[in-house]
């Protein structure tokens, strides 16, 4: 009786489930909304698995995760899987970067004023740069959000003509230092009162009912139309690799060549109207899917939907 | 003043005892309380008793309990007590770290044979002797020995007891034993314990002359009694009687005395009948006569209790 009820249903108990691996931040959306809805519509059981985008990609490459579908933040993790597991990806949505803050922090009042518009948005950076301010962000070496946050500060400095010193004052050492936490840890510390503010996706802030400062499109890394602006920022990783700014899109692909039918069904579901609504409801911006890689290799049911869109 | 102990309810022991400097025997049947008494003195037993040495009170109703390790004594328990994982030498050197001071050791024990050995490689009797040496190495004034030579062979046991009695390596030596001759030979006083009752401490002679109860009389070697009247009984001790009538030696009792060899080849069992009362005892096999019409008693306490055979 242990395995019964584990994602299976009365519709087709013997059906092979679709196994979706996703970045940790996509956990709630997949597990609680996309998965159950997909199951209801198709009768295909849903199995989800979350983790760091790169970690998941490495595990998929190693064969230790039996994933059919991979939802990544950015397409860089998917590049690790080409060409063995897939040759294409679709950028289908993006979640805006926000600055979540601790409502019990001594700086909370200022944050609230900026949130309400009583103070100009640009004041937020001076606040982050204050001595003793405890900011949390994620590791740019392993997490696209961590990379985006660094580039966001750099872009803000340019856009708001802030003191060049402020970048260092806010971030300290870019790729190491006491500001950097794990994706799981950073918001927990914010919630427990250990941090004054933290980088976050809008989706996470919505899910966890956090107070946050929204960023303008030119800084939130979620608007494909601002791709050129994002591209003007760069971050150098510890291993010497230089990352150029790009929208923090949710990139999806099937795993396995050829892909399984369930995987194809799941991607088509994501592109369907119901799928798209689910994304928007959870704080994501959806836009027409953008193809990365070989269009010709995209399974035809998916390709058909792209042409319709 | 002396080493003293006063026991009261609800403890198992009751009674009061006092020991001047010297060597003292504790006697009593198995389970009578000898170990309980010695552990109390050592500070390992009941906190109810009042115990002290000279002017210092070790424990008492209105006094703090002086822990075992602060009492000026060394206690050798009845069970094996050597530390299993330390060599004999290590244990003794632990107690007496100054190796320039010669160890006080009883005769007949070649300590060097055992120095680097672990206790479990020694026989039970050897372990007991080492435990004694270890206790002596403390050089404390009070030495408590709880049947601590029970597994040592007779010859060596005699030798050690004799040495303790002669050299007095501690000012107070209290030892419990089940051997009457040991208790009487190597002691200044004897304390008898019976079912938790601690009898007054007396010299061995005194004890023999005034046995308090049938049980203590038995412990002291009395083998039976002849009733003189309802409340006067003559106690018979095998070591204080002669077969036949010798009025110049003691009191002559007209009794029908017979003997048979045995039970051991070394012994002869004697039987005396006096006014239909029978007393039996054992004595060395050799005898001038094996039957007689009288018994001469060199020392025969007259007591109020009878000492019938069980």
């Amino acid at each position, binding site marked *: 009786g242990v395995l019964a009820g584990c994602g299976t249903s009365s519709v087709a108990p013997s059906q092979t489930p679709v196994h979706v691996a996703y970045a940790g931040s996509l956990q709630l959306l997949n*597990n609680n909304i996309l998965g159950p809805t997909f199951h209801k519509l198709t009768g295909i059981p849903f*199995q989800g*698995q979350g983790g760091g985008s790169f970690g998941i990609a490495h*595990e998929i490459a*190693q064969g230790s995760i039996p994933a059919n579908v991979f939802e990544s933040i950015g397409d860089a993790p998917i590049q690790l899987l080409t060409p063995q597991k897939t040759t294409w990806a679709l950028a289908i949505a993006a979640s805006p970067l926000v600055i979540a803050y601790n409502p019990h922090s001594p700086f909370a009042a200022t944050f609230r004023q900026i949130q309400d518009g009583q103070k100009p948005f640009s004041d937020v950076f001076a606040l982050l740069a204050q001595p003793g301010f405890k900011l949390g962000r994620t590791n740019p070496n392993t997490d696209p959000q961590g990379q985006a946050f660094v580039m966001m500060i750099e872009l803000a400095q340019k856009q708001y003509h802030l003191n060049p010193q402020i970048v260092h004052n806010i971030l300290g050492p870019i790729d190491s230092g006491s500001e950097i936490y794990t994706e799981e840890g950073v*918001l927990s510390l914010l919630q427990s009162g250990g941090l004054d503010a933290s980088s976050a996706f809008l989706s996470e802030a919505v899910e*966890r*009912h956090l107070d946050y400062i929204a960023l303008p499109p030119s800084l939130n890394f979620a608007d494909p139309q601002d791709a050129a602006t994002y591209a003007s920022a760069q971050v150098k990783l510890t291993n010497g690799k230089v990352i150029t700014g790009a929208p923090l899109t949710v990139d999806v692909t099937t795993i396995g060549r050829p892909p399984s039918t369930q995987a194809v069904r799941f991607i088509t579901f994501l592109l369907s109207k119901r799928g798209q609504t689910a994304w928007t409801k959870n704080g994501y911006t959806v836009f027409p899917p953008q193809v990365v890689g070989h269009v010709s290799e995209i399974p035809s049911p998916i390709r058909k939907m792209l042409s319709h869109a | 003043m002396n080493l003293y102990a006063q026991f009261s309810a609800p403890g198992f022991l009751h009674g009061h005892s006092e020991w001047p400097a010297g060597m003292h025997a504790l006697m009593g049947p198995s389970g009578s309380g000898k170990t309980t008494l010695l552990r109390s003195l050592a500070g390992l037993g009941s906190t109810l008793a009042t115990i002290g040495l000279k002017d210092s009170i070790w424990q008492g109703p209105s006094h703090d309990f002086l822990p075992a390790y602060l009492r000026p004594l060394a206690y050798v328990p009845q069970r094996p007590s050597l530390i299993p994982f330390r060599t004999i030498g290590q244990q003794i050197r632990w107690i007496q770290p100054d190796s320039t001071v010669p160890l006080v050791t009883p005769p007949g024990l070649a300590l060097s044979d055992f120095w680097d050995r672990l206790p479990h490689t020694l026989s039970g009797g050897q372990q007991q002797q080492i435990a004694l040496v270890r206790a002596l190495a403390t050089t404390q004034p009070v030495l408590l020995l709880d049947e601590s030579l029970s597994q040592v062979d007779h010859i060596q046991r005699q030798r050690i007891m004799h040495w303790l009695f002669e050299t007095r390596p501690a000012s107070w030596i209290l030892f419990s034993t089940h051997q009457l001759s040991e208790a009487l030979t190597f002691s200044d006083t004897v304390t008898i314990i019976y079912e938790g009752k601690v009898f007054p401490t007396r010299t061995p002679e005194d004890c023999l002359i005034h046995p308090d109860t049938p049980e203590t009389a038995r412990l002291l070697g009395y083998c039976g009694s002849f009733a003189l009247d309802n409340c006067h009984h003559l106690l018979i001790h095998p070591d204080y009687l002669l077969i036949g009538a010798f009025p110049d030696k003691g009191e002559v009792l007209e009794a029908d005395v017979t003997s048979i060899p045995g039970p051991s080849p070394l012994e002869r069992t004697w039987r005396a009948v006096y006014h239909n009362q029978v007393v039996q005892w054992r004595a060395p096999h050799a005898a001038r006569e094996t039957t007689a019409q009288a018994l001469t008693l060199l020392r025969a306490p007259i007591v109020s209790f009878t000492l019938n055979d069980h």
Partner: protein
Amino acid sequence: MLRRAGTAVTAVVILVTVIPIAVLITQGAPKFGQALSAPGAGHALAVTVESGSLALLVIFILGLPTAYYLRYIRSPAFKRFVAVVLVLALLMPPLVLGLVLAYVLAPATASGAILSQWQAASNSFPALTLAEVYEALPYFVLTAWSAISAIPKAWEEDAWALHKSPWQTFRFVLWPASRPGLVTATALAWARIVGAFGAPVVVAYHPTALPVQIWITLEEAGLPQALSLALWLVLVGLPLPGFLTWRQG
């Protein structure tokens, strides 16, 4: 003096130990009731209890005979070999253990292939149980071995010399004598099992056991909900070692 220092340090240890427990209870209590009704939570609890019991059973079946057997080993070389192997296993961080297990269970390997015949090698109930067994086994065997080898050999010999077989001696003498040590070993093993996260998160994300579910909850719903579920985990884990240590007094 020594005793007073001991009292002080013990008080510090109790305080230090109680703080996180108290925090967990106060923070977890508000949403304690709802925590289980969240999707997946109730199921995760059942999975933890079921796979955990099975894992503990496997550990008993494997670990108990081993711990007793090692008592009779005379060869110091063999004892050392076993000790070092167990210490190596102990030092394997759970996450690494998970990665290694993923490798072992991959269909490419012999063991994975055999297991796949019958059920999915990874992300299956057996894989979860296996991960739990691996996380807890060295803790159990080392602790039990240490406790059992401290029992005097003489106790057994005395029984044998009374015409009692090793099995009878085991039941009447050795087993009760080793029980306090085994209680500790079981408590450690059970704690490792119900708290197993590093290995299961790699090889057995599904069926999801409570520790992984807590992590999922943390990602989905944030800290308060996660702490409520963690409180459930602690409460579910407590009865077994709690009962065992309680009886022992």
